[in-house]
């Protein structure tokens, strides 16, 4: 069942079409990978879907409701939560207070937020730093904290923008485990990442973008073997003749 339907989305910055007639759907309970080379428009699509940009044309529907152009805070209240490539935490509050504030922003009481914050701190292995200001945490710890802030009240859709970029492998494993556990519980994810092994490991389907357009969509392995996808990542595939799969897209 489709949870989010994106139809003919356009976004232009000046004369540049950052998102050009993008359509795809996100199904209930899946992890959908949104992939593509740098500058392909993935983050702009996330900005459009999470309310930080308004599309020039096109429509976004969540179930039967048109949510096109809805503000980010209203979308968050409806359960469309977003994680950023550059983490967005409240730097002068403790990690624990960040979770508490995120919970209360989603309408939880202080006592309930406190209870859930404790559980998340433990699950995300943040106990040693929970009373430090978020500004003092490492990049990886901040990403874990942002995960917690997204999940303190279960979201309908979690949009994760490069959650594994520049993160220590141990923390990457904690994040991947966290995503798998939540997926097993039926949560829906839209995952933007350059990390192909992780994408293959976590996602069932993928959408690949290049130059603002969707160039392939479907089952993950078929997308990664698509000629246009290979060309978008590595240039003309003729130059890679003799190889079954370009190394960067090899599926282990």
């Amino acid at each position: 069942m489709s949870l989010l339907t994106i139809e003919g989305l356009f976004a232009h910055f000046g004369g540049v079409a950052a998102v050009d007639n993008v359509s795809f759907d996100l199904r209930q309970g899946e992890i959908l990978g949104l992939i593509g080379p740098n500058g392909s428009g993935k983050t702009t699509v996330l900005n459009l879907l999470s309310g930080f940009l308004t599309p020039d044309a096109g429509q976004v529907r969540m179930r039967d409701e048109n949510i096109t152009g809805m503000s980010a805070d209203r979308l968050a209240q409806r359960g469309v939560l977003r994680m950023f490539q550059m983490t967005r935490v409240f730097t002068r509050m403790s990690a624990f207070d960040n979770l508490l504030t995120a919970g209360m922003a989603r309408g939880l009481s202080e006592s309930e937020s406190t209870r859930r914050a404790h559980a998340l701190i433990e699950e995300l292995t943040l106990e040693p730093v929970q009373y430090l200001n978020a500004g003092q945490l490492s990049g990886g710890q901040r990403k874990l904290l942002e995960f917690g802030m997204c999940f303190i009240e279960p979201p309908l859709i979690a949009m994760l923008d490069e959650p594994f970029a520049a993160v220590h492998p141990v923390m990457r494993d904690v994040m991947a485990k966290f995503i798998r556990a939540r997926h097993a519980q039926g949560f829906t994810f839209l995952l933007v990442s350059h990390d192909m092994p992780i994408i293959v490991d976590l996602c069932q389907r993928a959408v690949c973008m290049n130059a603002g357009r969707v160039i392939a969509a479907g089952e993950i392995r078929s997308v990664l073997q698509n000629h246009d996808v290979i060309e978008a990542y590595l240039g003309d595939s003729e130059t890679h003749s003799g190889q079954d799969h370009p190394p960067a897209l090899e599926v282990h």
Partner: protein
Amino acid sequence: MKPIHNLWQERLRFDMRAALVIIALIGLLPAVVYGPYALGIILVSVYFAILALGWNLLAGYTGQFSLAPAAFAMIGAYTTALLDHYWQVPLALGIPAAIVVTALFGLMLGKLVLNLSGPYLSLTTLAFAEIARVVIGNSHEFTRGDQGMHVATLTDNRLAYYYIFLFALVVVLACIYWLLKGKLGRFMMAVRDDPVGAESRGINVVRIKMIAFCISCSICGLAGSLYGTFSQLVSPELGLLQQTGLILSMVVIGGMGSLSGAILGGVLIYLGSEWLRGFGDIQMIVFALLVIVFARYIPGGLWGMVAARLQGRRS
């Protein structure tokens, strides 16, 4: 060891206790200060402490840099004065009216400017402050212009006035504490730390800024109204940009984002400015230099230094 479940509230409680200790010490000052002039000076320092608390709520806790706190004090003072002068409204109504009118002005200005951020918000509030001052100064028929207006007083007893101001300071402090320890305080700090992050968590950023702005304006309005009744004269000088500069210095030097810092800064900087008066018109030069030094090297302000020592000793 008992686990700390809520660091922000722990910090806030510590800050509030310290603020109450500072106020208690200020309350004892009349015992060591002689003469009506000296009493007047410490009274005005409490007026500035209230203004500093009001501006700190907006700048220190919400991250919105308005350059109009003195203008709102002036509007509050004129509200009470005009009600008294034209309609003989008693001060018991005129002072609360100043709170309401400044909150309404804050709401109107906020609607225009709170979608803006950074230098645009500051520039727009600066423009508003100057326009308000010039309009009041030039409306001779209605406000008597630069001559100022006479206002009724609550009492002729200067010591009683001192404790009225101190009471107002405690009330404002209690209200801010109550706001900060709840959901609104958390959301204000979230907006200060990262407005985009706050919005992505479901916080209506413009609404939170608006609430903080209106409350901050009404605190300045209350302070201005009380000051007018004390001096029995209100004039456009109350809204001078120099007054705003003084309030900013008080908060930055005292400690931004701290209740104790704002009160400490308010009192110390005003007393310092009175002391510097003997050396010529150099107060703003000295405070501007101090603001640069504090902003660059001691961002926590005087209170930040004291709190670090106290908390270090506690732990």
